[in-house]
């Protein structure tokens, strides 16, 4: 990295830095070995059973198209879950983000407490949320929708409040000077600056939700995941293949439409 002979003053701190880098690399590699030991990871098992994988994969490559009739309604249910979850979660996130943005709510105690609550909600994984809601509202898509709503909330609220905090404060000042009240300031000075970001984040959350909702059925929270689980349990890989192909198609399509619309929004 350094040139050969000039051992100038500049190289001295660099040397120390490099030394620590080396230590970290050793620690990292050591950690890797220790964790494979602890978790009993065996790459060998993966390769020795590769034939089985190839077998499953081949069966999935011959999907059972007759099964499509059964898959489509559940697929639609999955998408509906994603849509509803996104809408509910986004609406909540919209309001909540305004309450935790420090350029809108000046009281640091209020924003601080609300942010801690937000961070707690954000740490719960979607499958756990699904399981909790299945326990609360019973098996079915309602549990899935609620789980997705909370996930959406977690994603959108964080991105959105950060967007709010980076806006140009000038219009807020101007509206304050005009004698506008808090809500009027939000509507006239804040929202015009952030609304496209908000829509973009909602679409982003929707993309994630479509993917997440396909597995939620696994734990009984509605949607296509239910069939995924059923077919896998009886080793009917032809049917599993059908489901997976359909899911991939839908996810890719929705991702594409969503990201195109987000691009269009941002300019």
């Amino acid at each position, binding site marked *: 990295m350094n040139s050969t002979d000039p051992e100038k003053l500049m190289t001295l701190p660099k040397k120390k830095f490099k030394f620590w880098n080396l230590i970290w690399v050793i620690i990292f590699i050591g950690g890797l070995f220790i964790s494979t030991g602890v978790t009993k990871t065996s790459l060998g098992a993966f390769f020795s059973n590769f034939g089985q994988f190839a077998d499953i994969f081949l069966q999935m490559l011959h999907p059972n198209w007759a099964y499509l009739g059964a898959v489509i309604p559940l697929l639609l249910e999955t998408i509906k879950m994603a849509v509803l979850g996104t809408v509910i979660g986004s609406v909540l996130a919209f309001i909540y983000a305004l309450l935790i943005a420090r350029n809108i709510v000046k009281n640091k105690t209020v924003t601080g407490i609300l942010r801690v609550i937000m961070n707690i909600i954000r740490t719960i994984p979607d499958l756990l949320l699904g399981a909790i809601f299945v326990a609360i509202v019973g098996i079915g898509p309602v549990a899935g929708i609620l789980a997705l709503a909370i996930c959406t909330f977690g994603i959108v609220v964080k991105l959105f409040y950060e967007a709010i905090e980076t806006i*140009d404060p*000038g*219009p807020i*000042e*101007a*509206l*304050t*000077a*005009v*004698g*506008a*009240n808090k*809500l*009027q300031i939000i*509507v*006239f*000075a804040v929202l*015009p*600056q952030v609304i*496209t970001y908000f829509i973009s984040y909602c679409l982003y959350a929707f993309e994630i939700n479509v993917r997440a909702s396909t597995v939620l059925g696994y734990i009984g929270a509605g949607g296509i995941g239910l069939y995924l689980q059923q077919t896998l349990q009886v080793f009917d890989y032809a049917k599993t293949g059908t489901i997976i192909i359909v899911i991939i198609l839908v996810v890719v399509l929705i991702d594409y439409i969503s990201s195109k619309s987000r691009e269009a929004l941002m300019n």
Partner: protein
Amino acid sequence: MADSAVKPIIELKNVNKIYGKDIVGLKDINLTINKGEFVVIVGLSGAGKSTLLRSINRLIDISAGDILIAGESITKAKGKELRMLRRNIGMIFQSFNLVKRSSVLRNVLTGRVAYYPTWKSTLNLFTKEDKQRAYDALQQVDLADKVYSRADELSGGQQQRVAIARVLTQNPDIILADEPTASLDPQTSRRVMQDLKMLNEKHGMTVIINLHSVQLAKEFGKRVIGVRAGEIIYDGKMSETPESTFNQIYSGGEKDE
């Protein structure tokens, strides 16, 4: 120095502002501005011009003293009372402070927001009269053809004139202009100053402008207030102000301008 038959519209009484623990923003300011005056405040950057101006509509809270707007204390006003006082004070900013993604018309209409209940303004239910008022204001600053343009499509000078149209639509008795020409070229600056003069002469609004351009101050100001290190060191008619006074105002600061 009040002329006959004029009422004070802004009164600052022993106003002090301290930032943090011991940084003096304003020091014992006593100032009376009468209705219809055209005042320029000059001084170096950091002298306290901006603090002085912003304390008048309480964008900055003062540490001690009292400020009266048409006899009413803005220092003690709360909530709706404060908003009603602010409604009567227009403000022009150095950086225009338009909502760049909104249309020119919507920006101008924000001047009327404080005249509406929240729900009505939120739903964009401005009356026909107010929309016409906004359009008339745009005509007065020669921007009628830009009414539906997005604010960020306009040049700096045009944006500042939109801000002037916003103030015109607000129709206040007092206008505070904080370095309105600092981010504009000389020609555009003159145009903006003329528009402010128009607000003063045609609409009888009391105008107070912070300027650091001595040239513009001399050309447009009627009353000059010199500020240095948070204190008013000069207050008089522009026509009677000798050159040496400006030297005095602009001397003694390490930060040059």
